């Protein structure tokens, strides 16, 4: 167990280092932020002073090692545009994104488990065909288009829900959240739906495939031969086996939602991390972009580790040992 975690730790550090090099040099190859940052009427001296202050006069590799050195002490740099440390800038946007992502993952799970089980256990029934056809549509529509259609339908035509923004927020455990005000919840519904649809669809298909495969397994037939009631066979024997792939997907999807809910946040002007990333790319705010990628990498590494541990908890055959890759 200890050997396993040590091995994973070393792997993680290597991944982070590699990502930092790639991202740092890639971002520094694109555009010149000075053109965007310096007011047109500024003098040459002011311009030079700014370049020096931002450290842009140094060679790239020098800038990289400065960045790396600072990063080791937890300082990922200061935003060119906002003038505040990027970590607090990004983390400040985290609660908005997290609440969106968590709510959409929960929605996806709550909806997809019964639908997927039903479709997998009664594959020839009419509702099952309907569900599976729905997943194909859900899969193939692009996120921004779905988002705009939701806005068009529920906000513009029906006028039921607001089009954009986070609505009224209240503090909860020191964080601002939309979860506890009516206005906030109304604002949450559409972006949550938009973010939940692809995952719901994916999980329905996974669960349906898993369930229909499980029903043909000997252990299910043996359970039936033991006289175990159908409910228990489904909830305990079948669901328990399907959970393993589902947990993996949920983990991976959770990471990518937090990191890349960009489209949904942009469509719904949701002030989360994704929107910050897009804005920063437009403004060539290099430190924010680099730090963003570093933090999401860290997130993925962490989520992967959690998934592995859950795996071992769900599947008794999996042992966390140093030899596992």
């Amino acid at each position: 167990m200890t050997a396993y975690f040590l091995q994973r730790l070393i792997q993680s550090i290597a991944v982070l280092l590699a990502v930092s090099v790639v991202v740092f040099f890639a971002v520094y190859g694109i555009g010149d932020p000075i053109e965007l940052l310096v007011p047109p009427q500024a003098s040459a001296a002011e311009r030079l002073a700014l370049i020096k202050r931002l450290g842009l006069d140094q060679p790239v590799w020098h800038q990289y090692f400065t960045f790396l050195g600072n990063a080791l002490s937890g300082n990922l740099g200061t935003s060119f545009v906002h003038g505040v440390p990027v970590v607090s800038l990004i983390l400040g946007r985290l609660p908005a994104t997290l609440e969106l992502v968590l709510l959409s993952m929960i929605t996806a799970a709550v909806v997809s488990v019964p639908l997927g089980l039903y479709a997998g256990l009664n594959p020839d029934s009419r509702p099952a065909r309907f569900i599976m056809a729905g997943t194909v549509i859900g899969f193939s529509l692009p996120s921004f288009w779905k988002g705009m259609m939701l806005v068009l339908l529920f906000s513009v035509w029906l006028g039921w829900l607001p089009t954009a923004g986070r609505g009224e927020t209240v503090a909860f455990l020191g964080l601002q959240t939309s979860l506890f005000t009516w206005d906030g919840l109304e604002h949450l519904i559409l972006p949550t739906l938009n973010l939940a649809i692809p995952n719901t669809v994916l999980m329905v298909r996974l669960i349906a495939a898993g369930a229909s495969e499980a029903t043909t397994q000997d252990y299910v037939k043996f359970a039936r031969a033991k006289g175990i009631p159908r409910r228990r066979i489904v909830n305990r024997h079948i669901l328990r086996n399907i959970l393993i792939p589902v947990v993996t997907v949920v983990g991976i999807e959770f990471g990518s939602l937090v990191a890349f809910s960009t489209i949904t946040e942009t469509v719904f002007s949701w002030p989360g991390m994704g929107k910050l990333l897009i804005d920063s790319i437009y403004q060539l705010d290099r430190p924010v972009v680099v730090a963003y990628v570093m933090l999401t990498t860290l997130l993925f590494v962490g989520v992967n580790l959690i998934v592995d541990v859950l795996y071992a908890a769900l599947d008794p055959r999996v042992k966390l040992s140093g030899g596992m890759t």
Partner: protein
Amino acid sequence: MTGLLDVRGLRTVFHAPEGAWAAVDGVDLTIGRGEVLCLVGESGSGKSVTGFSIVRLIDPPGEIVEGEILFDGADLRRASQEDLRALRGNRIAMVFQDPLSTLNPVLTIGEQMAEAITAHRSCSKAQITEESVRALARVGIPSPEVRLRQYPHEFSGGMRQRVAIAIALLNSPDLIIADEPTTALDVTIQSQILYEVQKLARETGTAILWITHDLAIVAELADRVAVMYAGQIVESGPADDVLDRPRHPYTLGLLKSSTGTVQPGERLHQIDGNAPRIDARPSGCPFRTRCDRVVAVCAEVYPARQQAGEQIFRCHNPVTSASVTSGEDLP
């Protein structure tokens, strides 16, 4: 004659686009209380389908289309789903062929035993543990208390099959249907398990339908034997009679190819050819394509049921033996 289980004219088909093919085609079986009946035949002859039909565990595209399954006087073909559920694992238990796949890999042995009890009667936790431990001990599993908390992958194949047998024993069933339970195991473990099952059946008065393709097992275990070919019972009777004086050429072929009957150095006999596929069964006697005693009538007329003593067989040109009373044709 009525026994604990009386199967009459059972016909189970599998539906395919081209039609319905009978995997089990007019099977009669009788098992008395506490009796061990071996159902023997090559792979594909319909033994498993017969076993699953008895407890009505046949899923589409399969369907039981004819016959009666009288268990303790009641026809299981007319039983409701809930009645069947209450019966399975309780009065009729099953053991499957592949011990590696019959236990759920993500649930502990203890849980899989406990649920088999609570599906049929309410029981305190302590009582469940006690009964499970006792059942595991009975099939020869050491330190059962520890084993209850383990998962299937922590057991060898032979141990897993013992667990499956222990589960089958939990509710003291009247009948155990064991579908080639030792086929996947090596010979020593096989004979240990055979010995133990035989002992348990005697002790508890449980009847056993033991499905196998190996006549050597029949000699060791069976009170009576039924030989199956192409979905039909071609010969049945007391094990001693059938093994000593087989009347059907197929039974004789099986005997000659059985490991138990060859002397060291002698070549193992094989019946020529393969069993016909379910969708290509010959007319008349289904065995005629492989039979070395075939006569003209075999292709045209399905052989009637004949009886000699307690032995029943279907053949136009049975293997002769001095002790055979002349074939009285039964309807």
